[in-house]
C-alpha cells in the first residue's frame, strides 16, 4: 500500500506538475528572446592594482606605509561623505602610529558630544576611544546632501562587495570622466551598440560599477590631489590602491593575525594527524596478521 501511495505522489510531483512547469518554461525560453542590456556587455569585473596588495595570499602582511597613505586619502577625500563607524582612533596604533600620534590625530576630528554645563548637543575634540564620526547627523541629512543616495559606511565595504579590495580600487580608478560618449571596450563601442544608453546628471559613468551609472561623483580627479608626506607620487591609481588597502584593514583588522595564527594551527594539526595516522596503521596491521593465522 505504502509503495503504491508513494509511486502516485512521486508521479504527481514529477510527472504532472513539473512537466507542466517545464513545458511552459521551455516554450517561453525558446520562443522569447532575452535582450542583454549594456550592463552585461560593458561591465568590467574588479581588477587588482599592479603588483597586487601586500595583504593578499596566505602569507600576506600589511604594508603599514601604504595603510597610512590610505588613511590620509580617507581623511582628506572619502571622509567628506562616508562614515567609518566601526573603526576607532585607537585602532590606528595598529597601522604604525604611536599612542601620542593617535591622541593628536583623534583631537583633530570633531565628534558629537554634550556640553557639560548646559547639556546641549555640541561638538568636541575626539579622544582615542571615539569611533570615526559620521559626516552627517543622520541618514536623512546624508540623503538630502547627496541626491537621495546615502553614502554607505566604509567600515565593511571591502567585505560587503565581491572581491572587495579590488572592487574599491577599480571603482575609484575606473571613472570615465568623459562619460559614455565614444566609450570603447574590447573593440565594442557603447554608443553604437546601445544608442539609447545615457548617463544623466547627477549620475556618473563607471564601467566597474554593476549598473554602469553610479551616484558617487568621482572622488579622485587629478594626480597629486593628496600630498603624501612619504614622497610617494600620488597618481590616481596609487591613491585608489592605498585607500583600498586602508579600507581592507578597516574591514578586518585581524586579517594578518588570522593568517599567521592559521599557519601555527595547521602545523600543529598536521603533526597530530601524522601521529594519528601512524598510530592507526600500527594498530590495524597487528590486527590483520593476528586474524590471518587462525
Amino acid at each position, binding site marked *: 500500500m505504502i509503495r503504491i501511495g508513494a*509511486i502516485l505522489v*512521486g508521479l504527481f510531483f514529477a510527472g504532472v506538475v*513539473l512537466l507542466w*512547469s517545464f513545458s511552459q518554461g521551455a516554450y517561453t525560453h525558446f520562443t522569447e528572446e532575452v535582450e542583454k542590456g549594456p550592463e552585461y556587455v560593458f561591465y568590467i569585473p574588479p581588477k587588482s592594482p599592479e603588483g597586487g596588495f601586500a595583504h593578499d595570499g596566505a602569507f600576506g602582511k600589511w604594508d603599514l606605509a601604504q595603510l597610512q597613505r590610505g588613511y590620509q586619502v580617507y581623511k582628506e577625500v572619502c571622509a567628506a561623505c562616508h562614515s567609518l563607524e566601526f573603526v576607532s582612533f585607537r585602532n590606528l596604533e595598529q597601522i604604525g602610529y604611536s599612542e601620542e600620534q593617535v591622541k593628536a590625530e583623534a583631537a583633530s576630528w570633531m565628534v558629537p558630544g554634550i556640553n557639560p554645563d548646559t547639556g546641549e548637543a555640541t561638538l568636541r575634540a575626539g579622544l582615542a576611544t571615539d569611533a570615526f564620526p559620521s559626516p552627517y547627523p543622520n541618514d536623512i541629512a546624508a540623503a538630502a546632501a547627496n541626491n537621495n543616495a546615502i553614502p554607505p559606511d566604509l567600515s565593511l565595504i571591502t567585505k560587503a562587495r565581491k572581491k572587495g579590495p579590488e572592487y574599491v580600487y577599480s571603482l575609484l580608478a575606473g571613472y570615465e570622466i568623459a562619460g559614455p560618449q565614444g566609450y570603447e571596450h574590447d573593440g565594442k563601442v557603447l554608443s553604437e551598440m546601445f544608442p539609447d544608453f545615457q548617463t544623466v546628471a547627477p549620475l556618473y559613468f563607471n564601467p566597474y560599477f554593476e549598473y554602469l551609472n553610479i551616484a558617487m561623483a568621482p572622488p579622485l580627479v587629478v594626480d597629486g590631489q593628496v600630498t603624501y608626506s612619504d614622497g610617494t607620487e600620488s597618481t590616481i591609481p596609487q591613491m585608489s590602491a592605498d585607500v583600498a588597502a586602508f579600507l581592507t584593514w578597516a574591514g578586518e583588522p*585581524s586579517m594578518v593575525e*588570522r593568517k599567521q595564527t592559521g599557519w601555527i594551527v*595547521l602545523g600543529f594539526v598536521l603533526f597530530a594527524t601524522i601521529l*594519528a*595516522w601512524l598510530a592507526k596503521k600500527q594498530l590495524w596491521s597487528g590486527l590483520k596478521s593476528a586474524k590471518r593465522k587462525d
Partner: protein
Amino acid sequence: MSFPWAKEYTPQHPLMQFLDEKLPLPRLVYNAVGAGYPVPRNLSYFWNFGVLAGFCLMVQILTGVVLAMHYAAETTVAFASIEHIMRDVNWGWMMRYAHMNGAHMFFAVIYIHIFRGLFYSSYKAPREMIWLIGVVIFLLMMATAFMGYVLPWGQMSFWGAQVITGLFSAIPLVGEPLQIWILGGYAPDNAALNRFFSLHFLLPFVIAGCVILHIWALHIPGSSNPTGVEVKQESDTIPFHPYYTAKDGFGLGIFLLIYFTLVFFLPNMLGHVENSIPANPLSTPAHIVPEWYFYPFYAILRAFTYDLTIPFTGVVLIQAKLLGVLAMFGSILLWFFLPWLDKSPVKSGHYRPVFRKFFWFGLIPCMAVLFVCGGAPAAEPYVMLSQIATAYYFLHFLVILPIISSLESPEPLPFSITEAVLGKDDNAKLGGATAQPAE
C-alpha cells in the same frame, strides 16, 4: 544490547570500582565507545562521519555559548555587536569564524553521512529507528542553521527571514496568520530576532538529546557495514576502542585540516557579501539566496513556476508557490518512508547492480544540479535544469526505488564479514552452524 562476546567492564582501581557501583558512568562509556562495543571490522572511512558530526555539534555549542556572551539580540545593535565580537573581543574573530564555518562543515559532514546511509541502505531493518531519528536531527539542524543566519541582522539575514517565513503564507486559510504568529509581526523585526536567538540557543541542546537517542538506537543492532551482511560471529567484529578510536582520530585530523583552512584562510568564502551590509527593510538585494547547504531544497521550491489548473478552464487548483512549498518539505519528509519503500533484502549498494547505477548516475548528478541551480539566479537555463532534477529526485525515491527493489536480482553476498575481509571463513563450510545471532 550488544553481542554476547562483548568485553565486560571490570574496573581495577578502587575509585573506579566505587564509581561503577554508585553511578556506572565509566561502564556506559566503555560499552558505548570503548572496548565493550564490538563493531564490524570492515568499516570504511565513510563510517567516520557520524563521529565527525558529533564533533561539529560540540564545536558549535562551545563557540556558540561564547558568542552568546557578547552578542545582543536587538535589531538596532545586533549588527554592531557582531562587529564588536570581530574587532574588540579577544579572539572574538576566531570564535565567530569557527562558528560560521563550523556550520558549513557540519552540513558537509551530515550530507556525506546521509548519502552514506542511502548508498548502504542503512535505513533498512533492523536500523529503521536510527534513520528516523536521523531525519529529525537533520530537520532540527536546518531550523537551527536558518535562525542562526538571521542573528547577525545583515541584509541576507533579514531578507532570508522574510522569504523563508513567507513560505508559510502559501498555506491556504491559516497561512498568513501563521506567518505573522511566527514572526511576531508583519515583517521580521525585534520580536522575530529575539525569538530566533532564543530558539537558536535552545535547539542545539534538543539536537544533542536526539543524538543521544540516535546513538542509543544504534547500539541495539550495532553499526551497519559496507557489505550489508549482519554480524554473525566474534571474528566479524573488533572492539571500538582502540581500533575505531584510532581510525576516528586520524579522520578527525583530516577534518580539522580542512576546517581550519577555511577558518583561518578563507573564512568568508562560503558566505554572502550582502550579509556585511546592515539589514535594510527598504532595500531588497538583487539575489536572495540561502546558504549553500539549503541550495538543493531552495531549487526544488523554485522549480514550480506554474499554477496547477484544470486544463482548458483556467481554474486554479493549487498555486505554484504552494506546490513548491509542499515539494520542498516533501523532499525531506519522504526520507521518513524510505525503510518501507525500499524492500530489497540486500542492503549494500555494492551488491545491487541496478540500484547502484541509479545512485551514481541518477541521484548524485541530480543533487549536483540542484546544488548549482539553488544558488543561481531564477533564470533560464537554471530553472529548466532544476525542474528536470526535481522531477528525477521525486521519481528516484518514490518510484524508481520501490520498483527496482522488487525487480533487481542482487549479486551474491559473502557469507560473513570475516569472509569479505579475509577471503575465507571456516564457519562458512559448516553452513554457518556455529554462527551466533546478534542479540
